[in-house]
């Protein structure tokens, strides 16, 4: 079973220590939570792992393979997928095509056969479109398949992005606030999907401000505050930790 | 033949970069057309029909238009295109479709395309000797700096010919500077030449650009005693307007002596300025002559066919025109000969250069 590890990772922006010496493990087959106040550095962690940011210090490993200095596309080809906190779809493409592009990593037909329009390449396209269509079904947005992605309501755009990120069956997927903008009923649907994915062996890193949602799904939760890890452990323990309550959850109990 | 209508096309650059030549040539041709029909120059009852077309200095349009006109059997010949590669391409098309094409340019390559193509202006190897002889022999210059337009091939050809013939005469070419055809800021080149040693400057450019270069040369401090030479493009009122006092003393060869020098040319000059409201320039005169040459060939055709027209154009001999020394002939290589004048600017006017 593979796992993603980051060791003593730091990211400084000028004087600002956005991430400051943290260690974390995201095991396969589990859902790992990463929570923390706004500006704690959660998205920065995702960007460091996925290769958008270089690390000021520290290392990233997938099993034994070092990812620290790989570029974005190389990291992705190792099987690490992500979504973006500010949704990033290809706005002019149809919803279906947005998902089809997600299969890139698993494509087998080469550039030449594509340029020459060989039957193998065409058949692959057909097959991928069907798979993408299935996947849209799983996220309940099949009926939007032919719409321009940019015209979908916010919540549906999130689903498209998630579908795209898991299309190529990554080993690890990092979801940055996947249910933001969804109500309880809608996020419950997403929860089911996440659990399915974990059962299939994928490792999920879930960043979310919905503590109840995180508690329900995650086996392990990390809490980041001002770039430092202030707590980690099973959700029940973490959410009762006074440091976490003070920095993050606040006095009032969360809804539902 | 009883009252034939001879149909020719004037295909010039009326817009685009070569429009400053094309429009002027077309105007000259319009005046000639009018006179030819008024004076019945084509013989009893015969009329000349002219269609004016614009190729926008664009080879695509030239080739399309020539194909179209070639496909219209009523059209006997084409006066155009104007110049440059467009003219060469037009000449090739003319040969392909077997329709006589009389380009305005002076580039002998037009003639290489085949027997159906002609040029209206004399190539550099005919015109430049007039200038070189004057500069080297009369003025006795020894060292000459050259400034030319780098991207207008007609000017480049003139410049090359000048360099070659001067070198043949033992004159040293000190430096060759090239500027762009649309530039107007020559301060750097001017400073460079003004601060170096030579006893002659040759400028190969259009009237307005050339005047501008010379003015900027003088402003940069060029020794006023250094003679400045140019070629036939300077023979235009444009040159004086643009250059003013700055071009005083510039010497150049000319197809056209502004204002005319005998009855025929003076009549042309008067009629032209009455018709168009401004003085005739070099290109007006060339256009006027071109149409007369065409009319002469049309008149002498045994039958109205393109072959006949082509043959007659090739036999043009001593047609009275306004350009050069007034008599236009074509030799066996189809090179035109009209002679050249050497002019100089004196008190803001063109006069024959003193020998």
């Amino acid at each position, binding site marked *: 079973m593979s796992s993603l590890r980051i060791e003593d990772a730091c990211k400084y922006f000028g004087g600002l220590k956005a991430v400051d010496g943290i260690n974390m493990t995201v095991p396969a087959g589990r859902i790992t939570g990463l929570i923390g106040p706004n500006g704690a550095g959660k998205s920065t962690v995702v960007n460091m792992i996925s*290769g*958008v*940011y*270089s690390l000021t210090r520290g290392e990233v490993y997938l099993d034994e393979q070092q990812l620290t*200095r790989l*570029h*974005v*596309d*190389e990291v992705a080809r190792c099987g690490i997928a992500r979504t973006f906190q500010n949704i990033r779809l290809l706005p002019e493409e149809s919803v279906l095509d947005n998902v089809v592009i997600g299969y890139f990593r698993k494509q087998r037909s080469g550039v030449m056969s594509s340029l020459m329009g060989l039957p193998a390449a065409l058949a692959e396209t057909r097959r991928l479109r069907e798979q993408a269509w299935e996947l849209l079904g799983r996220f309940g947005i099949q009926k939007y398949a032919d719409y321009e992605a940019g015209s979908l309501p916010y919540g549906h755009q999130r689903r498209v992005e998630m579908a795209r990120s898991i299309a190529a069956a990554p080993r690890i997927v990092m979801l940055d606030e996947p249910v933001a903008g969804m109500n309880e009923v809608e996020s419950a649907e997403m929860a089911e999907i996440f659990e399915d994915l974990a059962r299939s062996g994928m490792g999920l890193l879930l960043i979310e401000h919905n503590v109840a949602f995180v508690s329900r799904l995650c086996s392990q939760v990390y809490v980041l505050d001002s770039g430092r890890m202030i707590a980690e452990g099973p959700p029940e323990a973490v959410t009762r930790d006074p440091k976490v309550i003070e920095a993050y959850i606040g006095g009032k109990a969360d809804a539902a | 033949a009883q009252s034939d209508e001879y149909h020719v096309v004037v295909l010039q650059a009326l*817009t685009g*970069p070569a*429009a*400053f030549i094309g*429009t*002027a040539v077309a105007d000259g041709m319009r005046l000639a057309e009018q006179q030819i029909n008024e004076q019945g120059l084509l013989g009893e009852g015969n009329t000349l029909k002219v269609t004016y077309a614009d190729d926008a200095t664009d080879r695509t349009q030239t080739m399309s238009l020539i194909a179209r006109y070639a496909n219209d059997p009523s059209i006997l010949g084409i006066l155009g295109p104007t110049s440059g590669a467009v003219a060469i391409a037009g000449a090739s098309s003319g040969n392909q479709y077997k329709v006589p094409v009389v380009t305005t340019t002076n580039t002998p390559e037009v003639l290489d395309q085949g027997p159906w193509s002609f040029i209206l202006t004399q190539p550099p190897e005919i015109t430049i000797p007039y200038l070189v002889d004057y500069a080297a022999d009369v003025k006795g210059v020894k060292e000459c700096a050259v400034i030319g337009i*780098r991207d207008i091939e007609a000017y480049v050809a003139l410049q090359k010919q000048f360099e070659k013939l001067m070198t043949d005469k033992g004159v040293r070419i000190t430096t*060759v*500077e*090239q*500027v*762009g055809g*649309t*530039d*107007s*800021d*020559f*301060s*750097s*080149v001017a*400073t*460079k030449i003004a*601060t170096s040693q030579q006893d002659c400057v040759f400028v190969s450019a259009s*009237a*307005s*650009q050339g*005047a*501008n270069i010379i*003015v*900027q040369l003088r*402003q*940069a*401090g060029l020794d006023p005693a250094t003679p400045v030479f140019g070629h036939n493009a300077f023979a235009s009122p*444009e040159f004086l*307007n*643009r250059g*003013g*006092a700055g071009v005083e003393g510039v010497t150049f060869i000319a197809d056209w002596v502004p204002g005319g020098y005998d009855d025929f040319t003076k009549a042309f000059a008067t009629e032209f300025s009455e018709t168009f409201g401004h003085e005739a320039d070099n290109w007006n005169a060339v256009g006027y002559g071109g149409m007369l040459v065409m009319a002469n060939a049309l008149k002498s055709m045994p039958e109205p066919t393109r072959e006949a027209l082509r043959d007659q154009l090739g036999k043009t001999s001593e047609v009275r025109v306004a350009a050069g020394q007034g008599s236009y002939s074509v030799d066996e290589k189809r090179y035109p000969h009209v002679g050249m004048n050497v002019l100089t600017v004196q008190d803001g006017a063109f006069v024959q250069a003193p020998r």
Partner: protein
Amino acid sequence: MLLQQILNGTVSGAIYALFALGFTLIFGVQKLLNLAHGAIFMAGAFIAYYATAQGLPFWFALLLATIATGAISVVVDFVAFRQLRKSGHAEFAAIVTSIGVDLILMNIAQQVSNTKVLSFPFGTFPVKFFSFWGMRISLLQLTILGLVLVLVLALAYYINRTSFGRQVRAVSSNEHASALLGISAAAVYRQTFFIAGALAGLAGVLIGLSFNSIHFMMGEPFLLQAFVVVVIGGLGSLQGAVVAAILIGIVQSLTIAYLSSELSTAIIFALLFVTLLFFPNGLFGRAGNYAGGSRR
């Protein structure tokens, strides 16, 4: 000769700057490639020419041309760009509409001038030379340098010290959000186009005057030049445009003087290419947050 050539380059560069500043406002700030800017520049020279030909004093013609080209530029924005911005496809479509405007303006100018090259009558501006340290500078060149300096400072003040500059940047970065803040994008566009057009027109008059040549196609080489200036300077950076313009003027002048006038274009553009390799956002461009696939 070196100093003289640097001076020549500076004066040419100052004029490029005038042209390029307006272009930066439109191209750099609004991301619109306005290929009609050269024609507007040309219109400035034409208007001033015909105004002086009517006997108006030169300074008045200059003012008239500046205001008129500002107004033309606003009209151009209205007919060629406004609708495109609404449809949200301006970036590329503007290339075509601005070519359309360019064709129209050039055609009109060609008809008006009968394809001739025009120039201001002699004595429009007193011809007077000053010599110092072995250099010659004309009164006109001095005036141009002074004028450009004043204008650049005024513009810099207007853009950087009033809220207008912020509004321009806000509209260019997100028109939708700007509207929510109460910014009238239309008004911002009107003002930038007016300024850009007026600067171009003014540059047209000055160039027509100093280089003695007014022609319906005179805008083209300057347009090409302006591209280079704006990009080397860094898109949207006013200081950048000025520095780049003068730098290019000087480099051009020196290549002609010491290397080769025949190769000057090749050298300038090769330099441009190399500059971009080392400064992918231009000399003064704010480093974009683009890094493609590599870590930053």
